[in-house]
């Protein structure tokens, strides 16, 4: 078996057994990363740094010092600040910005022994569901439909991370999820995408999109790998006031495969107009798999679900309009001069931000403006509480919730570009868990009729990633998803 095809768990065993070295493992992935260039998944390759880190990792192993991710080469979303390595959130406005500091999550990963391959492409400032809004150009999904060579989107905003993992160019990748930005690309590329409970991972050093929603999480090829990688990323950070001070459990230990007696909710509101029948069929299949494994299926209602998307598209842009005010051309990144201060601001921000970012900054500014605040932002906050309360109520009768991850499979590049609402609908199933701050995971569970991957989503109680992982592991096993993207099979 090729080293790039190993799971993180298998690589861990192989490294421990001395079957291969960290340098060999990383070397294989550097080759794969370079071979993946047609996908445009990476915006910065750090091959040299990767080799240095692998050498250091092998040395640590030799001295008996082995971290949870020791020697595992991974990719980092461009939203994470990485010391000495450019971090631009795939925006023109952060041109040439190289942070002199390391985000807490990536620092945790390096402390656990992981090796950085490079920075991955993403929608500009994590705003998007297609990776089409990146200043560094779109990412091509390694999958395409049977009999249709049209380039597909990998989803977004963590599209580069998802594509890199799907194309076997990285064993795992960090993503960030604000309204579905890990889970939806996970579903579109046939990999596992996991968003932990809000507060589980530090946001320090992660370029902010919407502070009350942003969470870092892993993209991997298996549920077990996600549990290992999350364990290395998570933990309390005094530098982030919203980071929660509670112990990080051994997530991997939760993968017992035993869900007998567990109650899993199926919310009736997650059927939307225009959703392909095959996605609903896959959802029913998921229910059957869980039943077969001994779980109790409970029909539940989350009545405020239909308000989740509009609520999200008020709160997230509102926070973004303020968070992105710091990109003003004064201290770092792009500056486009003007005759006056006002003109410099206008020139810099007009040129520096792409269309989708501008759209959201305008929406956000509008909903916070005098006279509109109560009708939009305040109302949205109230609805957000109701949505969280819906879930809270359901935890009395269920231990986890099963839904589809996205209402469609990966669409072609260029589709939905002239219709923001259609684009926003991608997030319809992922946004509610984001608004409620709940852990959720997308597991590749099947293929569409034209051969594109589809995912099922498991949502858990706050800080109960363990139950969520356990259910996800059962779905993964039952689905036995082994299909490979054409980008790989063609090559081979």
């Amino acid at each position, binding site marked *: 078996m090729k080293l790039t095809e190993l799971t993180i768990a298998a690589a861990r065993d192989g490294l421990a057994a001395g079957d291969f070295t960290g340098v060999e493992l990383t070397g294989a992935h550097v080759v794969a990363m370079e071979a993946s260039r047609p996908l445009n998944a990476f915006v910065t390759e750090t091959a040299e740094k990767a080799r240095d880190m692998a050498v250091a990792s092998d040395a640590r192993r030799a001295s008996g010092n082995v971290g949870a991710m020791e020697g595992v080469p991974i990719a980092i979303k461009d939203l*994470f*600040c990485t010391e000495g390595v450019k*971090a631009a*959130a795939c925006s023109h406005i*952060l041109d040439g*910005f190289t*942070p*002199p*500091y390391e*985000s807490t999550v990536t620092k945790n990963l390096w402390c656990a022994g992981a090796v950085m391959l490079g920075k991955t492409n993403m929608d500009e400032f994590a705003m998007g569901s297609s990776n089409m809004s990146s200043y560094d150009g779109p990412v091509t999904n390694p999958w395409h439909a049977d009999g249709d060579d049209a380039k597909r989107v990998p989803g977004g905003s963590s599209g580069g991370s998802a594509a890199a993992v799907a194309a076997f160019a990285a064993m795992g990748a960090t993503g960030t999820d604000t309204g579905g930005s890990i889970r939806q690309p996970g579903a579109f590329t046939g990999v596992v995408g996991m968003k932990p409970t809000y507060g589980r991972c530090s*946001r*320090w*050093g*992660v*370029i*902010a999109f*919407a*502070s*009350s929603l942003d969470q870092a999480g892993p993209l991997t090829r298996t549920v077990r790998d996600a549990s290992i990688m999350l364990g290395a990323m998570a933990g309390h950070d*005094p*530098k*982030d*006031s*919203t980071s929660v001070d509670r112990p990080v459990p051994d997530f991997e230990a939760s993968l017992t495969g035993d869900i007998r007696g567990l109650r899993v909710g199926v919310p009736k509101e997650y059927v939307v107009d225009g959703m392909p029948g095959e996605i609903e069929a896959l959802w029913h299949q998921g229910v059957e798999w869980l039943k077969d494994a001994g779980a109790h299926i409970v029909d539940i209602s989350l009545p405020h679900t239909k308000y989740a998307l509009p609520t999200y598209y008020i709160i997230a842009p*509102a*926070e973004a*309009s*303020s968070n*992105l*005010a*710091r990109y*003003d051309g*004064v*201290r*770092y990144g792009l500056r486009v001069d003007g005759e006056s*201060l006002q003109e410099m*601001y206008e020139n810099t921000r007009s040129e520096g931000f792409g269309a989708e970012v501008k759209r959201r900054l305008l929406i956000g*500014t509008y909903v*916070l*403006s*005098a006279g509109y*605040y109560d009708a939009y*932002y305040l109302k949205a906050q109230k609805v957000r509480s109701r949505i969280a309360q819906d879930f809270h109520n359901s935890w009395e009768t269920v231990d986890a919730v099963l839904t589809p991850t996205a209402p469609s499979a990966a669409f072609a590049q260029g589709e939905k570009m002239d219709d923001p609402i259609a684009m926003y609908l991608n997030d319809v199933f992922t946004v509610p868990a984001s608004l409620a701050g709940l852990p959720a995971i997308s597991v590749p569970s099947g293929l569409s009729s034209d051969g594109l991957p589809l995912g099922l989503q498991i949502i858990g109680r706050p800080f109960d990633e363990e139950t969520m992982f356990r259910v996800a592991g059962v779905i993964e096993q039952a689905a036995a998803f082994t299909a490979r993207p054409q980008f790989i099979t063609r090559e081979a």
Partner: protein
Amino acid sequence: MSDLLKGNAGEWEMVIGLEIHAQVISNAKLFSGAATAFGAEPNSQVSLVDAAMPGMLPVLNEESVRQAVRTGLALNSKINHHSVFARKNYFYPDLPQGYQISQYELPVVGEGEIEIDLPNGDIKVVEIERLHLEQDAGKSMHDQHPTKTHIDLNRSGVTLMEIVSKPDMRSAEEAVVYVTKVRSILRYIESCDGNMQEGSLRCDANVSVRRPGDELGTRCEIKNLNSLRFLRQAIDHEAVRQIEVIEDGGVITQETRLYDPDKGETRSMRSKEEAHDYRYFPDPDLLPLDLSEDFVAAMKASLPELPDVRKSRLVSEFGLSAYDASVLVAERETVDYFETVANGRDAKLAANWVISDLFGRLNKTGTPVSQSPVKAEALGELIDLISDQTISGRIAKDVFADMFENGKGAAAIVEDKGLRQVTDAGAIRAQVQAVIDANPDKVADYRGGNQKLVGWFMGQVMQASQGKANPAMVNQLLKETILG
């Protein structure tokens, strides 16, 4: 009322509300660990958070909260156990985040009131609207380059308390007294050093005028007044301007104005139409601030005796006049100095010495009490020499001058210069007799009924004794001798 202003057509009343921005004494900023010392090299006290680097997050400095709560308690104001930090959004180069973290709908301190002593002896209550915590901005420097503006972020993120009064003041004088009182309280509890020159304490004044008894007029806000003198001048100029506008048939438009001390006028900075829409919303990077009963109780217990309480005590315990007491309590170190001097001594005498003699000399040289060359113990020693009649009060003035100039002790000066008071009746009698013998015409005049001449005789005898004769004995002996 004496505070009314006369216009060309009748009387006008000023209405003033003040916002005081007080920099909290703390080693760190409100949301970062950067230092806060005044006068450091530009941009030498700036953390990644203060410069708003991507991905940076604020973490609340507990000391800032402690100081805000202590200040709220010292201003007799309600402490809000639940308060929220909000973002105030606007673009300016010295505001790196593009927003100031402040408090909006739910400030940490709510309503309260303080008493101020007016010059006519009246006590006036001024109500406090709120106190909230906020970040200071950086500083734009326009004098470093012919065409460019430089930015110093040392002040960016420093903790400010904004103390907002209700529109309770009716004259510039009242406004000055109010600010002085608030400043005094802040300095007592050491939550702000009150240094207006260094910008640790700045004021915005909201000024309007109205006919006595009318509804409130339209107000203008005068920004950034950094001395009591400018505060007084700005308010007076602004009130006169508004009266002139209205009497000329115009209307006041709500706007922000700046005071130009060189020209002695306020001028428009931005109109209401140009006013920013700050788009306040709760800062999602920070949790609400929830304070326990125990925390507030501990802050209360940490407060020293406050000026008003101390003033009452000086009146009741030491028998001082309300005026003397209020002068002494204005600064904590002054009243501490006084109490050391007065301890075990004649308190009124001590008060006179501190207020007239010590303050007189300190004010001349602009020296704070803490750096007085005459320490409290030394002044006490001098007063002891007066009380036990070692020296007269007049000689004591000379001794004090010597102490102030040369830093020597009172007893040493008296010994070195031989200033010990003469109380030997025989010696004094001889000097009295010598003066009488030398001035027979004055004696006749006195005996003829010119009683005032006793003062002249006193002067002659004291002069002859080089001031050392006990004045009471001289007086006594003079009367005996001349009348006898």
